[in-house]
């Protein structure tokens, strides 16, 4: 029992880790079949985990409703939505009987769920504005550099960017500026920005190899729930 709980997962992680590592360098169908085999297992495990997740969801919200935890009304809505969707799909299926028609489940998905999802996504625009306000407060030299670079890139990336700069240039200096702001914006994105980006990517790649080595050789095993 102790072996199954402690050693076996580590041995399994080692074998699977090495298998997937070797697979990367072997261009045969065997490598492909190993990957497909892994994907099949992933689907099977996800299927079982899905059942556990549904139990967790129902249990969590039922407990909240039963205990009248503040905000339990939202839990009632969640549970109602869950059961309605489940029952309607079980009764009417996933395919509409009439060509071009919708099952009740599909109708709810298209006309209730998707608009809600789009609404949530749309709020991002407002959050970007508030985050930009916070980021662009020029309180330090770094923040000022960020503000200037951000403004150049923002103006340079819109189609009217060069026209805007020329308009103000004509207004205040009497003639158009020679350089194009879009070119400068591209330079910022392709040089200082890309340099920083690649530095981060290289660090991530090395860190991922280090983590993989730790996991494959059983040095890091917190994710197994086993401590050291």
């Amino acid at each position, binding site marked *: 029992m102790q072996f199954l709980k402690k050693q076996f997962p580590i041995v399994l992680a080692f074998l699977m880790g090495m298998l997937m590592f070797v697979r990367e360098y072997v261009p045969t169908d065997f490598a492909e079949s190993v990957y497909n085999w892994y994907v099949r297992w992933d689907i099977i495990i996800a299927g079982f985990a899905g059942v556990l997740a549904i139990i967790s969801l129902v249990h969590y919200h039922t407990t909240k409703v039963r205990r009248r935890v503040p905000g339990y009304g939202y839990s009632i809505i969640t549970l109602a939505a869950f059961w309605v969707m489940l029952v309607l799909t079980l009764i009417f299926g996933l395919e509409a009987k009439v060509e071009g028609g919708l099952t009740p489940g599909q109708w709810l998905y298209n006309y209730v769920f998707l608009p809600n999802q789009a609404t949530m996504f749309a709020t991002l625009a407002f959050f970007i504005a508030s985050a930009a306000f916070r980021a662009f407060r020029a309180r330090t030299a770094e923040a000022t550099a960020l503000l200037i670079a951000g403004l150049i890139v923002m103006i340079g990336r819109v189609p009217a960017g060069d026209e805007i700069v020329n308009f103000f240039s004509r207004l205040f200096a009497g003639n158009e500026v020679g350089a194009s702001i879009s070119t400068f914006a591209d330079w910022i994105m392709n040089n200082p920005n890309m340099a920083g980006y690649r530095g981060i990517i290289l660090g991530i790649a090395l*860190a991922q190899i280090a983590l993989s080595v730790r996991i494959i050789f059983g040095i890091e095993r917190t994710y197994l729930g086993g401590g050291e």
Partner: protein
Amino acid sequence: MRHIRRVLFGLLPIGVWFILTSSANSQMSTAGPRGIPIPPPEGMTPEVPSPLTKEPEVFIPLPTKVWAQDLPNDNGTGLVVIFEKAEGETEEQFYIVLIAESPEGPWYEAVRFPADTSFKDDYSSYFPGFFWFRKHKEPRTWHAAVISEVSVGERVIPEKGKNYYLKLLAEKQGRVVEYPQLMEARTRVNWFHTARTNNLIFAVIFGAVILYYIALARKDPNLYIRKIAGLEAVDEAIGRATEMGKPILYLNGMDPLSTLSTLASLNILGRVARRVANYDSELLVPSKDPVVLSVAQEVVKQGYLDAGRPDAYKEDNVFFLTEDQFAYTASVCGIMVRDKPAANIFMGYYYAESLILAETGATTGAIQIAGTDSTSQLPFFVTTCDYTLIGEELYAASAYLAREPRLLGSLKGQDVGKLFIMIVILVGTILASVGFMFVRDLFKALG
């Protein structure tokens, strides 16, 4: 310094081996006269000029060096005809390769391409040695006609381990000439992807360096690791939550368990859970992925067990919300607004929801620590969170929090890898500036 020198000396023999083994393989080389037309194969009715009667109206040059071979680095179902660019070939000229299972036919058209395309240079995944060592000396000199998945009725050829016969034809303005030599080649399964040799060598060396430093850390546990402010703040955040009597919200990111950043996040969760249990605070872990949920429950439970507080673990605090990105975001934002956690910890991989989550958390006044390797979302976390673990720091976090020598040793090995890359970038930049692309090409991903 002594260890770095050892590592660099260790690279030398591998580099020599790499150079010796990476040159392109070739076989069945045949040479023939140029421009001699022969009758067209069965199934084709081109006008064939006869060199015995008069000069053809349209001159169609043929290559002199032509051979067929197995396609390297494939699964054994490909062939390739390689030939030197014919003198005088123009973009109007087409090359056609016919394939048959016996010398008598029937012949099937396997590939057709204009003469100004399909060079060996274009297939660096199949011919890495050519790319690494010769590309810049003879650019676009050798044609490579890659043959795979040719439909023959209900079958697809070439099949594994079989001999095939190939003919090379050149076509221009409706006239066709054939290379006089019939070619034969056999498909074979390739057991090593040579285009990934550089990748493998680096992975093995880097893995070995990490294991070496882990072994070193066992002997000398007092390794110096630079401070990471975001991780120093974890204790502060947990302490604050305990003082306020509010929970700590921990998110594992949006990706499934197969993603390394999610694994890194779960490792950190284990360390955080242990600290939370010690402080007797409450930890909320809403999950998006069912598999991650199951693992997170185990990890948190073990954290409480390790802290000697199994009684304090509440299974309901690690719960599933939904698999949908924005429904999950809405739900987590609701938890933030209603329960007002004292600390929000965002670890793992995030997408567009990162800013919505972090901004909502900021409005509740919670101390926020984020860690992600999603470069597109990093700016949003940096803007809205108190502390952000950037890229590699996410992966180092578990080792850092554990303070376990073996794990810290791997961080040291990681730093040596970074030093190596910095040296390569520096040397490669200098060499590329004076026209030597060898170092740059050696580190290019081809396969």
